[in-house]
């Protein structure tokens, strides 16, 4: 029940810590615990799991999901959703790959191209959602189809062959890591850290929670809700663009039109496992990162254990329910207390 009992009106000092939510949420601790247990178990049952040769590629695989997850967390905190990220990856990846092949542009230019394309597509989502005032899931269902069409037009019924190794900095190979830390994963971690800080301390970040909690009240409080929403979807698009570079780098020298497919559900799964409320107003990017690692651990773990790969996603489904279930139970006990 509510806890607003009357306490003596003594002037207690009010610390910053008490105004903002706890630094680490219960969901994050639970996830970390589950991850540690999983990794220990996998380490015991498959000797090779806890080796750099196994962990490295796993983290590389996590990176694009976690990276887009940052944007998706922003989006879901504002009570939105973006199911067009897979299509944005596709458009961004194929265009960038074509430019790499045709003009042999340098890595930095390729990254910029990818990000700009992603951001532009995100801006389309953002404007339609903020100013069209139609539910984000509907808008992004619609734009996902448009983007996919666009991507297929760029593919023009063929694959992109002979992609140079310009982007190997993000890749799985030796050039893709420093001291055993894959660059792409490091980038994802940096993005998560920046987003964590932004959501916690920056005005624009805190306002996202307000928008997700009660959009009308946010508008009445003078928050420029619509520009903020546009910005959130632009960021998601830009991150999808950057993730597209990682997808190119971790793929082969060939890019085909299946690129990105299914990633939207993986990203959403990572975000919700991480404890972000699908109803908006509450969420954390650290949880998203842990959620992304958990999903990939389960999928890789099943393969490494030699179990039928078809079972992997059964476990992913179960983990989604378990992770969100613990959050539900904690929420309920918090209310009862």
């Amino acid at each position, binding site marked *: 029940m509510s806890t*607003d009992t009357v306490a003596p009106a003594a002037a207690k000092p009010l610390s910053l810590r008490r105004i*903002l939510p706890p630094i680490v949420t219960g969901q994050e601790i639970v996830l970390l615990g589950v991850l540690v247990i999983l990794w220990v178990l996998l380490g015991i049952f498959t000797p090779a799991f806890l080796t750099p040769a196994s962990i490295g590629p796993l983290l590389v695989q996590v990176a694009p999901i976690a990276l887009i997850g940052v944007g998706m967390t922003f989006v879901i905190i504002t009570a939105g959703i973006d199911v067009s990220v897979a299509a944005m990856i596709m458009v961004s990846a194929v265009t960038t790959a074509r430019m790499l092949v045709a003009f042999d542009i340098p890595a930095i230019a390729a990254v910029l191209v990818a990000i700009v394309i992603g951001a532009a597509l995100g801006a389309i989502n953002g404007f339609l959602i903020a100013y069209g005032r139609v539910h984000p899931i509907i808008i992004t269902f619609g734009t996902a189809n448009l983007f996919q069409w666009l991507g297929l037009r760029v593919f023009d019924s063929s694959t992109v062959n002979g992609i140079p190794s310009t982007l190997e900095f993000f890749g799985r190979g030796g050039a893709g890591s420093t001291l055993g830390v894959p660059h792409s994963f490091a980038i994802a971690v940096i993005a998560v850290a920046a987003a964590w800080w932004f959501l916690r301390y920056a005005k624009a970040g805190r306002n996202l929670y307000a928008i997700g909690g009660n959009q009308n009240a946010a508008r009445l409080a003078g928050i420029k809700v619509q520009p903020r929403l546009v910005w959130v979807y632009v960021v998601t698009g830009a991150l999808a663009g950057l993730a597209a570079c990682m997808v190119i780098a971790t793929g082969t020298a060939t890019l085909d039109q299946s690129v990105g497919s299914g990633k939207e559900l993986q990203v959403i799964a990572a975000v919700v496992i991480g404890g972000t409320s699908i109803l908006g107003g509450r969420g954390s990017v650290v949880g998203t990162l842990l959620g992304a690692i958990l999903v990939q651990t389960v999928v890789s773990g099943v393969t490494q254990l030699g179990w039928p790969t078809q079972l992997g996603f059964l476990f992913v489904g179960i983990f989604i329910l378990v992770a969100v279930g613990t959050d539900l139970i904690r929420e309920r006990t918090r209310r009862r207390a």
Partner: protein
Amino acid sequence: MTDTAQRTDPAPGQGPTPRLEMRDISKRYGGVRAIRHADITVRPGTVHALVGENGAGKSTLIKILAGAERPDTGTIAIDGHDVSIASTTDAIALGVQTVYQEPQLFPELTVAENFFVGREITRGPTIDWRAQAPRMLELLDTVGLDRSLASQPLGALSIAKQQQVSIAKALLEQASVLILDEPSAILTDAEIEVLFGVVRRLAADGVSIIYISHRLDELFRIADEVTIMRDGETVSSQPIGELTVREIAERMVGGEIAEGVHKEGEHGDLVLELEHLTLDGAFSDVSLSVRAGEVVGLYGLVGSGAAEVGEVVYGMRAASSGRMRAAGDDRHPATPSEAKRRGIRMVPANRSSQGSFSFQPIAFNITIGSLGLLGRLGWVSPKAERRISDDLIRRLAVKTPSGRQPIGAMSGGNAQKVVLARQIVEQPRLLVLAEPTQGVDVGAKEEIHRIIADLAERGTAVLVITTDLAEVQRIADRILVFRSGRVAHEFPPSASQASLLAAAAGAVDDPAAAQTATGQPVADLPGRPTPGEEPR
């Protein structure tokens, strides 16, 4: 700044430039003409009451001033200068601060964060909490909220405390016009006293305050002038001292008001009996009984636990211990549908979140509680639906062109009648009413009271749970005063307001204590559910 002497200046339009002038304001919502050609003039440093029946257009008028709605016609001048208010940001920049009828807050954020949303003090890109904190804590003190609440999530606070937060929040920045849209509707009397203190102080500092309320008597204690609205028009505007409550009420409805609904009569069998009923954290050891044809009033301050008694009787919550005998059955109803089967009905306190199916038609809203009447074996006959709803629309004088209108577009009072209609489709054996006329205008209030009396006359046992002192005196045969989760005292309806208030505030035998008690914060019990939270 303006000195207080001007507050006695009787003639509007004279003296220095008005703080605010709204001229010829009109606003339509589709076919509904919410306001037509309304005018209002507010002088500096005055408290200006805005009254009118439900749906008269008060909220719409102030939403236009606050920038939350755009008017179709009209001009607004502040301190003599014409201004254009296109958004809430514009209004805030012009010094217009608003406390909306429904608190516009963020349940997931802490109280402290709620204060500063949209106007954070920043250092670089980050929010400077140390700079924000002192002012916020001061304001919590001002409105009589405990400082420790600052770190609570807002959603964990009672609705009354949320309302106080939203008032405090409006004081954060120096306002030249402060709008309070029914700030007192859900506050306890003690909280209202604190609010009045704040309002008086602000007015003395030269702030102009627009104060909307349906509690007409309280306006005489706080307001300098009053503007009366009827059907979207402003019908008169003058110093409040020139009018009586009765005159204001008559101008609001455009006619005379009948008196009294209370009837003496014989009461039938026991319908509801509670013995030592306890709900942990809300109320304990409650014993009471209601007979057929009797109206029992349960009066208590907000948070006294009275509200939860109704929820237990209706099966929304399970009691922790004690006995309940309702409608000839010894078991507690486990769910509202079980309560319904036994002829128990309840009108919840919050009509918008607990009562209305906003975009469904009125007919849907009326019949949804009695689907069994619409046909056999789970069948629904549109004809039966129309018959039942048209009948109730007529009986309750709901103002609507047809039962096909969505309830969401109706004013508060009419919506309340529809929610009430739902529970009296079949004559209930026991009707529990929580705050049946909260935020309802005098005309509609009158009608609702008459409906209640009518039901009792036809044999329904009625339990009215209210925080409205005048209401409980008017309609109840017996009044049980609730305090700190217990029945403190039982009174006949003839008891004086002072003694009722004294009992509720904790000074039973000393009517003089009632006066002092109202000036102080009253201990609240935890346990009032926050709106939107699920029971159980």
